[in-house]
């Protein structure tokens, strides 16, 4: 045990026995030591956050615990018993349940069917539908979730689906519940709801392993932290005894001044500039709308300007971005680029006008995971040229090499498949694809979601320096600090309409929150939130 690294060895550790004890765990992949003698433990009824950058070994540790990977050395004890899980089913049977970042449920089945999937109560050789609905209802009610078990899962928001996934995991009589980035696509209200559920599980004595890149969420919900870096244990801490800045330092192991740096520079420099030279409008939209998606909206983006889109999940941020990026078709209103009226029918046309939309849904709509890093980077450029005019191999290699270096993409080489990269590096590959077409307007929809602090800072810096070079950026993020740090102007959306267009001149998070929340009499998302 690395006691020296663990001066805060919690005193209550002595009173209860840990439910999970992993000792000296090592896992080696070809060429990489993914985990190197890591210790990890969890106590019943605690929320334990596993922290670390991408590639620190968080996922590997979780996969070792859930039987996805075999450990090369070390020991896993569950409730004092040494265990070896050959596959995830065994881990689940032993009471270790996992809810993954991407909800692994079946959208075209009902909530009840999803909760009971694979464990349907049977009667006379068939499924006892009555009992199934009743049990699903009991489970949901046990979590104080007011969700109709007979409704289709797809009819619910992602947040509700996540809660259903948790309900499903709980019904397997979990002793340990692993939540991997559960809050990354939830808005504030939904996070509160999730946390209420987590707290009630805590009371039942379930140990919860919480993985999140949102420090706020980590500090709000977790009792204890374990920090990993480069496959090694940094230490285990009590959350309330560890300052945030110390945590971040432990995670990335270097002084974190990058983030603060940008903040100050972003506004001052740009303001000075814009007062000197008259701003050139790059894109202006008048009353652009799409039925069932967003009400008519006006928005204007100047050359070299970073416009932030703020608002809760479902406020129309992504919908507006998709209209401007040509991903969805505009029903009404007018879009002008460089003063010329433009009708965008496909993303291809937007790209022709040097407008690039980088989707929030990295895996489903962004990267092409079975292609190499090189192919992913040149994809948009090549598609624009057409298949019969291939980019010469030498040029491809140059492009790939230059972006791998410029964006600090961690990959063995340009031939590596993108599926083998971590989330942050996949995001960088996607960014590289868009930068390769030399866009005039870059629409970034949640570019920093689910990636680590270091990569986040790098992407923020990149946005800043791109704007300095005259590129316009439409920046969407659920993290208001990030929006404030980078944007010259912030457009606030609520309920699919624009409510404010603010110059970012000394705005604070609270100011912005007030605008977002102002008059929000109608709850953002009508769900089964606790009555």
């Amino acid at each position, binding site marked *: 045990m690395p006691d020296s690294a663990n001066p805060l060895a919690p005193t209550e550790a002595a009173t209860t026995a840990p439910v999970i004890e992993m000792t000296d765990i090592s896992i080696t992949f*070809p060429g990489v030591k993914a985990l190197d*003698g890591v210790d990890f433990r969890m106590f019943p009824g605690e929320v334990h956050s596993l922290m670390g950058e991408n590639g620190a070994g968080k996922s590997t540790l979780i996969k070792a615990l859930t039987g996805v990977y075999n450990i090369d*050395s070390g020991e896993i004890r569950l409730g004092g018993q040494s265990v070896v899980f050959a596959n995830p089913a065994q881990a689940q049977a032993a009471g270790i349940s996992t809810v993954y970042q991407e909800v692994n449920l079946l959208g075209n089945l009902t909530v009840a069917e999803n909760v009971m999937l694979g464990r349907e109560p049977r009667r006379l050789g068939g499924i006892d539908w009555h009992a199934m609905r009743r049990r699903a209802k009991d489970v949901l009610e046990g979590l104080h979730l007011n969700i109709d078990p007979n409704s289709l899962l797809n009819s619910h928001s992602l947040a509700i689906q996540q809660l259903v996934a948790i309900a499903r995991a709980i019904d397997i009589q979990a002793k340990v519940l692993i939540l991997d980035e559960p809050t990354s696509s939830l808005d504030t209200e939904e996070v509160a709801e999730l946390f209420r559920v987590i707290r009630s599980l805590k009371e039942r004595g379930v140990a919860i392993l919480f993985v999140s890149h949102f420090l706020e969420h980590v500090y709000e919900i977790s009792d204890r932290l374990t920090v990993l870096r480069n496959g090694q244990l940094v230490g285990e801490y009590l959350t309330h005894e560890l300052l945030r800045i110390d945590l971040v330092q432990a995670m990335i192991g270097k002084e974190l001044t990058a983030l603060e740096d940008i903040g100050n520079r972003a506004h001052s420099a740009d303001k000075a500039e814009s007062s000197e030279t008259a701003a050139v409008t790059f894109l202006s939209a008048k009353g652009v709308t799409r039925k069932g998606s967003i009400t008519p909206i006006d928005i204007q983006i100047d050359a070299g300007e970073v416009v932030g889109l703020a608002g809760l999940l479902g406020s129309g941020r992504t919908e507006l971005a998709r209209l401007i990026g040509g991903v969805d078709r505009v029903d009404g209103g007018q879009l002008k680029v460089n003063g010329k009226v433009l009708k965008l029918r496909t993303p291809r046309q937007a790209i022709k006008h040097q407008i690039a939309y980088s989707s929030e849904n990295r895996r489903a709509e962004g990267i092409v*995971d079975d292609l190499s890093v090189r192919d992913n980077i040149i994809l948009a450029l090549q598609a624009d040229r057409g*298949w019969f005019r291939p980019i010469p191999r030498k040029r491809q290699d140059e492009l790939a090499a230059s972006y791998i270096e410029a964006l600090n993409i961690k990959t063995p080489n340009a031939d590596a498949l993108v599926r083998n990269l971590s989330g942050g590096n996949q995001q960088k590959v996607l960014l590289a694809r868009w930068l390769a077409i030399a866009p005039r307007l870059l629409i970034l929809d949640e570019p920093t979601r689910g990636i680590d602090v270091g990569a986040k800072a790098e992407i923020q810096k990149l946005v800043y320096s791109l704007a300095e070079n005259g590129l316009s950026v439409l920046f969407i993020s659920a993290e208001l600090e990030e929006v404030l740090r980078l944007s010259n102007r912030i457009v606030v959306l609520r309920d699919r309409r624009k409510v404010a267009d603010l110059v970012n001149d000394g705005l604070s998070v609270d100011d912005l929150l007030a605008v977002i929340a102002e008059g929000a009499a109608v709850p953002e998302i009508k769900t089964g939130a606790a009555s």
Partner: protein
Amino acid sequence: MKDIFFKVIGNRLFWPLVMLVALVVTNAVAVPGFLSITVNADGNLFGSLIDILRNGAPTLIIAVGMTLVIATRGIDLSVGSLCAIAGAMACSIILTSPDPNNIGTVTVAVLVALALALVLGLWNGMLVSVLGVQPMIATLILMTAGRGIAMLITEGQILTVQSTPFKFLGSGFIWGIPFATVVAAVVLALVALLTRRTALGMLIESVGINPEASRQAGVRARGLLFLVYGLCALLAAVAGIILTSNQTAADANNTGLFIELDAILAVVIGGTSLNGGRYSLTGTLVGALVIQTLITTVYTVGIPPIATMVFKAAVVVVVTLLQSPTTTAAVERWRSRPKTAQPSSRPSEPAVAR
């Protein structure tokens, strides 16, 4: 050394190649002289191996087109019917012409047949890309209707052709090599060049792996699908003409019957996933050779005709099992099994002591 061993075993072509060699060895043992290739009086090559290359040509030609279709997440069930249509079209033109032995006549007949197939292939492409019909359903239409079209062209007859230039296409020799084999090799080489020397292959794979991401990156899937289904139909027509020429007769009901299944099988044995994405033309070549050698084996080993299908199925099951993800994973596990010599635990060193 060991790494190389696992690299070879992990290659997706390893098991198909093993199967191919095993089949050839079986034949060589069963039939003395199976491996021998002789040159006859005309300077042409003869032998069982040459037969495999010649008789396997139509399947290979179709499988090449099928590979691209499958890479886009599609499938083309209509290739067998297209064989029949192309053969019927060519034969009926030759028969109605005053001079069946004229090279010009045969050229026109072949070109018209190819053009007709191309149009029908674009029809498939239209159904799939513009109307968004599922590929299996879209091509099922032409699979069933196609034999009817061929029947209309032949007016319900089996058209027997006596034309020397036409006969050459299926059974002629060029530089001592069967003409059909040369055509198949040229098709394989041209398609490989077309897809790998341009960006066509990469864009096809991209659309097959992630259609929505490709759309957002500006890839025009519609154009690609037209091209791929058109090419597949064109190649089916080439195969159909070779088959018809070989039989010197166009039979609307039987030309190219079930060849779509052999072609799909060749693609799958070659390691291209039916889920679309990465494809391998080399793999398809090996797959087509495995299938043709298998068919030959049925005759050489003397398996009764009634058991032919069962034997073929058994071999296919073995190949697919060896290639399955489960087998690959098992090999991977065996490879990365913990070494016993390693100490079970070693002192851990936390990187930073805070």
